[in-house]
């Protein structure tokens, strides 16, 4: 239809330019409204700014629909379509090809930010003109940054350099269900985490950090960001588990790490926010922490697109990295100014803390310390090759191994699990109840430790970690009361999910694994399972051929057939897909590593315990924060 009115590229670029101008208007006039003394004039300007922000969100949706339309119509005159789609690509993968490239993914992220900001600007106005002006202006400046990238650097509607009858097609690694939903979830998370930055900047510059509505808005966006980013990371982990064939869900790849950093700080900010009820000093801690996730999201994008770190996820070098680096520097400078102004802005009388007195606020403080400390360690370790190049020889490219990260995160996971238990116990109001709960927690911990050490034969450290998880699990569970608010019950449920996650992750690390060469009819023993190479099978479809060994797996209780295989696509690209049998307590995981001409095959087989529980826990932790949003709505409705 759009061809009736001209070129898609022309219209797309025109709409993006209009968005840029509207964002400029909103940002600059929002700032002017903040500086104006005349209230009526400020109100008039703010209503225009709100209209501009709404127009931005509508136009961005139109631009995105145009972009999707170009993919659906196979319009290879657009470089992004020619680069990431093809005629043969099934419809759903054409949709995921929309955000497979650097320009498309940035457009998706920008649209998420514009729409969220438009809805927020339209619906949650406060009666405070100064705060409204500041938040609209700050939000519009962020939108201006995104639109500047789309107009000047990473142009989604740029035309192809040559005329093409067919596109290059989508990378086979991305032709997977989880890759259809992973990027949108991630970008929704990144987008939501922009607003804590906006709120703190607006609160500090408008002098409203003492107001309750600032923290209420902050809580909403932090919960939304944590939820979406958590689910984005979880879907990415699931994709790694079933596609990449390395036998795990997390490889401590730089791009994976940098997506975890904003989530960790956002969780720390949320706990700091919760702590405000118990101790006002957390306001300062919140004001300093809450803007950081947005800066870390920009850093994550910079790492993905600049190619400064080697990663399986990177887009390679991109034109956008210079502009992004400028935004990061601006963001860091603003954050530093906020951090300096925060103490005065929050207007809290500072007294020396009493670190050894066990209460809820102290535990929250230490949870924050652990989360921030973990973020710093993972951040420094991820950027270690660059840091090393600055201090030693430029040729040295040294990345920290997986063992290092595993050790750090195991220690942190167990420490957090223990703090969770302590936090739940600190809520006890009566001594007797505290004593009973401590005894039941200790009993659960000791029983779990002993069972896993002796019966399951796991190592001392894994048994200890699982014992601590059991201790805290009982502590949180016994802390739930029928009279609790939904928010408290939800918080307890999420914490139980976190404990299950730590438990399952720890337990699953003790996997049984073997890589072997098999001839037809050959068999191997892996734990109590026998694996037999039955036959080599081919399946041919329109766009690809699948081939791989059929492996029969038998034990006392089960008898099943698994088919790990390689997908060979028409464009000569190929990937391997693992075969996974998911049991209640164990996954049987077989990857096809290659075949020789004489019919022998190389396979990797693993028995991974507790994986089903790991995925349940990760989903539980991901979705949990959403229930907190309903709590907000319920309170609003009641009031």
């Amino acid at each position, binding site marked *: 239809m759009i061809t009736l009115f001209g*070129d898609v*590229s*022309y219209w797309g*670029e*025109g709409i*993006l*330019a209009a968005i*840029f*101008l509207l964002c*400029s*208007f909103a940002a*600059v*006039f929002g*700032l*002017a409204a903040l*500086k*104006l*003394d*005349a209230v009526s*004039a400020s109100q008039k*300007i703010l209503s225009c700014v709100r209209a501009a922000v709404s127009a931005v969100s509508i136009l961005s949706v139109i631009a995105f629909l145009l972009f999707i339309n170009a993919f659906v119509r*196979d*319009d*290879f*005159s657009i470089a992004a379509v020619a680069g990431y789609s093809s005629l043969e690509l099934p419809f759903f993968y054409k949709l995921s090809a929309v955000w497979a490239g650097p320009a498309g993914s940035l457009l998706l992220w920008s649209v998420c930010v514009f729409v969220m900001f438009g809805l927020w600007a339209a619906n949650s106005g406060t009666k405070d003109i100064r705060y409204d002006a500041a938040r609209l202006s700050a939000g519009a400046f962020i939108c201006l940054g995104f639109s500047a990238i789309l*107009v*000047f650097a990473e*142009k989604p509607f*740029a*035309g*192809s*350099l*040559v*005329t*093409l*009858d067919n596109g290059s097609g989508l990378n086979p690694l991305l032709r997977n269900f989880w890759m259809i939903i992973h990027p949108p979830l991630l970008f929704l998370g990144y987008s939501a985490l922009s607003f804590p930055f906006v709120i703190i900047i607006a609160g500090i510059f408008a002098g409203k950090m003492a107001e309750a509505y600032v923290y209420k808005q902050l809580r909403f966006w932090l919960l939304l960001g944590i939820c979406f980013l958590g689910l984005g990371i979880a879907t990415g982990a699931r994709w790694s588990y079933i596609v990449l064939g390395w036998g795990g869900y997390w490889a401590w790849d730089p791009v994976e790490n940098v997506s975890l950093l904003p989530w960790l700080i956002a969780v720390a900010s949320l706990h700091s926010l919760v702590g405000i009820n118990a101790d006002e000093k957390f306001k300062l801690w919140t004001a300093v922490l809450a803007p950081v996730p947005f800066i870390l999201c920009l850093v994550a994008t910079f790492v993905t697109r600049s190619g400064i770190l080697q990663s399986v996820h990177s887009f390679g070098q991109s034109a956008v990295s210079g502009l992004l680096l400028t935004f990061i520097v601006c963001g860091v400078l603003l954050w530093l100014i906020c951090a300096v102004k925060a103490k005065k802005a929050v207007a809290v009388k500072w007294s020396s803390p009493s670190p050894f007195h066990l209460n809820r606020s102290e535990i929250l403080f230490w949870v924050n310390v652990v989360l921030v400390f973990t973020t710093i360690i993972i951040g420094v370790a991820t950027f270690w090759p660059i840091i090393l190049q600055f201090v030693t020889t430029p040729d040295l490219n040294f990345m920290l191994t997986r063992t290092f990260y595993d050790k750090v995160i195991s220690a942190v996971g167990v420490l957090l699990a223990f703090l969770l238990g302590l936090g739940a116990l600190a809520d006890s109001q009566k001594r007797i109840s505290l004593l009973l709960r401590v005894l039941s927690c200790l009993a659960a911990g000791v029983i779990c430790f002993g069972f896993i050490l002796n019966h399951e034969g796991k190592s001392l450290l894994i048994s200890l970690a699982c014992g601590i998880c059991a201790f805290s699990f009982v502590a949180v569970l016994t802390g739930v009361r029928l009279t609790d608010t939904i928010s408290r019950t939800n918080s307890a449920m999420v914490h139980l999910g976190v404990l299950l996650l730590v438990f399952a992750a720890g337990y699953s690390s003790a996997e049984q694994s073997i890589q072997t060469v098999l001839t037809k009819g050959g068999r191997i023993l892996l734990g109590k399972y026998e694996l037999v190479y039955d036959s080599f099978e081919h399946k041919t479809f329109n766009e690809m051929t699948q081939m791989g060994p059929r492996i029969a797996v038998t034990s006392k209780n089960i008898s099943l057939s698994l088919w790990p295989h390689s997908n060979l696509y028409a464009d000569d690209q190929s990937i391997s897909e693992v075969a996974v049998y998911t049991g209640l307590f164990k996954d049987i995981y077989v990857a096809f590593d290659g075949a020789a001409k004489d019919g022998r095959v190389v396979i990797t087989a693993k028995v991974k315990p507790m994986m089903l529980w790991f995925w349940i826990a990760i989903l539980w932790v991901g979705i949990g924060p959403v229930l907190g949003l309903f709590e907000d709505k319920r309170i609003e409705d009641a009031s």
Partner: protein
Amino acid sequence: MRVKLIMLFCGVFLLSSTAAAVEPNTPAQDTVKMLHLFIQADVNEIRFENIWVFERQSAKRPWQVSINLPDVAENIILDEPNRATFTEDTKIIRANLAADLAVDSVGFSYTLANRGGECRTFIKPDYKVNSVIVSAAGRATGLASEILKPNKFLASHSNAFSRIYSAYDLAVGTKIEINLTGLPCRSSQVFEIVCILGLEAIIIAALLTLLYYNLKGKRRLSR
């Protein structure tokens, strides 16, 4: 009498052979059996790859054909430079075809400038044309012509070209127009310039607004 008849035949044969050797056959006597044109474009130029297949009634005599190129054609490359020549001034390719064949071909390519995603040109052969087939690469590329019509049958059997146009039995001197649109073109910087100028205008407008309201406020205070 019999000897006279033989001498007459020999005389006519010699005369016709000599005449044939002295004067190459005029273009109008030959036909273009097939004219294949492959069009591919990038942001700078459009390349036209030509295959002209000529046919004549009788073989075994020298055979020369000539093809007029558009005046603005550039980068002319002849497939067989040893038997064809190109004259830059007249933009004419002259090719000596195989003397012992009734059907032979000439291959060459040239480029035209891509002007903002469009290109207008034409071919005017000095021969009767049995068939013209034009294959345009690029799904977005559109070709408009009064003579050439889309050939869906050929397009459906082509892996390389999505748009194929054809025309048949064209008289001598028929002008085959080729108007191409939707070609790739350099992204215009108009929007970028508009954005920068617009941002500057907005900043100035905001400053003026601030100034206006501040002056208004001061005036009110002074009253």
